[in-house]
């Protein structure tokens, strides 16, 4: 397989409700990504597009619908969709387009516009539950998270005030992100614990916001990347894995599917000791406890111990292994597919030393980004290095 580099990235602001349509958001991010590496659409040989359920847009085949803005016209184009895992999978999809030898330059665009669903995108999630055995109970998406969080907390004796540190750190980090929706430089654990209880143990500030936005990357084969930039960031490993669709049969304490996805990516990247070899982690954090859950699945913390990384400062932006220096979904926002690809873009900027106020010190060499989704059982992982 050929080596694949990220050579350009772009993104829009993440906002609660964007004036721009999905096509327009996609175009803005794609244009910025192309401009950043001084390419035009003529140079691009194929486009990989990511967006989550059609239900948000009320448009069937949303990938094809948004394809003009995403740069899909007149070339091989395909939308990938694995729920919340889409954004990170989208980069893996772009990777195999190039690694396979089929294309030298590929555009990857992830977009989400959740605000069109009226009055609140939450209700669109009803249709992810089984229509016969679950939907009759009028479930709420928060249930799954609340149920999993409670099980996690109870099994390991992790306290809510400890988990709230995740939300605090990510939202504080996001205050330095120019595209962030919920950057809060002064938020405290107490603020999180005092926020409205939605589905105990989940409170308002434990949750990432519904958002609109888009992110794009340009991927290049090694020989092309080396001609176009002096600072390529390599996609060193990719992995994805699925757990059972019967979510009530699943292990709710430990995300084994993330472990398997991570092992696939680490093996490809030649990583044997992830805790030493990964310098920056961008685990998927739609809820604060999920970042902990995922850090454990990524083998970056022992089971039930991930919160210690936040308590002892390891996860801080200037710690030994910064976690979500971008601000994550909790801070930057959660336009689903775009949020996952934002994590890859963050690693790209961090590893190039171009992250501005968010820059992690110490010239990091390697990072991992991860997302999770579908009926909460998809794990997608990408390892990047320079």
């Amino acid at each position, binding site marked *: 397989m050929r080596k694949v580099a990220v050579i350009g990235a772009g993104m829009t602001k993440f906002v609660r409700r964007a004036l721009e349509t999905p096509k327009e958001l996609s175009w803005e991010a794609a244009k910025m990504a192309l401009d950043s590496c001084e390419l035009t659409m003529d140079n691009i040989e194929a486009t990989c597009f990511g967006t989550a359920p059609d239900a948000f847009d009320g448009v069937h085949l949303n990938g094809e619908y948004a394809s003009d803005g995403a740069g899909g016209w007149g070339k091989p184009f395909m939308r990938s969709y694995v729920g919340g895992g889409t954004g990170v999978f989208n980069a893996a999809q772009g990777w195999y387009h190039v690694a396979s030898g089929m294309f030298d330059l590929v555009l990857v665009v992830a977009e989400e516009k959740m605000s069109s669903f009226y009055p609140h995108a939450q209700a669109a999630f009803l249709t992810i539950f089984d229509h016969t*055995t679950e939907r009759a109970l009028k479930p709420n998406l928060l*249930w799954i998270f609340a149920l999993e969080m409670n*099980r996690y907390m*109870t099994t390991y004796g992790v306290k809510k005030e400890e988990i709230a540190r995740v939300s605090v750190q990510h939202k504080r980090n996001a205050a330095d992100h120019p595209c962030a929706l919920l950057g809060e430089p002064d938020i405290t654990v107490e603020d999180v614990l005092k926020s409205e209880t939605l*589905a105990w143990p989940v409170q308002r500030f434990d949750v990432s916001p519904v958002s609109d936005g888009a992110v794009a990357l340009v991927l290049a084969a090694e020989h092309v990347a080396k001609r176009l930039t002096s600072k390529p960031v390599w996609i060193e490993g990719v992995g994805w894995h699925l757990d059972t669709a019967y979510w009530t049969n*699943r*292990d709710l304490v430990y995300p084994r599917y993330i472990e398997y996805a991570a092992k696939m990516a680490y093996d490809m990247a030649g990583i044997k000791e992830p805790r030493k070899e990964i310098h920056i982690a961008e685990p998927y954090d739609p809820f604060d406890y999920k970042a902990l859950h995922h850090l454990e699945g990524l083998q970056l913390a022992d089971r039930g111990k991930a919160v210690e990384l936040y308590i002892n400062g390891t996860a801080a932006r200037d710690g030994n292994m910064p976690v979500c220096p971008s601000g994550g979904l909790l801070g930057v926002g959660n336009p689903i597919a775009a949020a996952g690809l934002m994590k890859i873009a963050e690693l790209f900027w961090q590893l190039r030393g171009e992250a501005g106020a968010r820059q992690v010190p110490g010239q990091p060499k390697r990072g991992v980004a991860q997302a999770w989704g579908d009926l909460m059982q998809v794990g997608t992982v990408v390892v990047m290095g320079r």
Partner: protein
Amino acid sequence: MTSRIKNFPGTSLSEKDFDESKVLFVHDELKADYAWDTGVGIGAYLAGLKRGVILGSRCNHCRKVVVPPRTVCEWCFHPMNDFVPVKGTGMINTFSLCYVTWDVKRITEPEIPAVIMLDGASELSESSVIMGGIMHKLGEVDPQKVHIGMRVQAVWKPEPEREGSITDILYFKPIGNE
């Protein structure tokens, strides 16, 4: 690169912009009616519920019993067509106290969704996989007293009112003086 870009695209709108007609928008409702066949596995499950029995399916190859019933064993990919009753009792694996409805309306008395591990389904000791785990709600219980590990039993609708639905079980309630 982010450090070099000063103005990012994306224009934020507020609810007020809509209320005050500052932006044009189209509002429409999609009509989408479905009649889902219940299939073999879930069809048997629902027929069982109508009789007041919770069925699981058993794999004759790897001998697991799982709920809800299905026709293929995910573990060994063998048929799983043997539908066997499990008990209407079990243990709370996890629960939540939910103050928001599915369409984001606030409620003061919490709904109590739970994952219940039914007695009679397989247990795997080396992992936390919940072979007999189903999602349902809890009732006849003080929300502050619910806890993981609590023993519960199904409370059924009166037989004439059952229609072959997961809601034929009204909810699960604590057993005895739990």
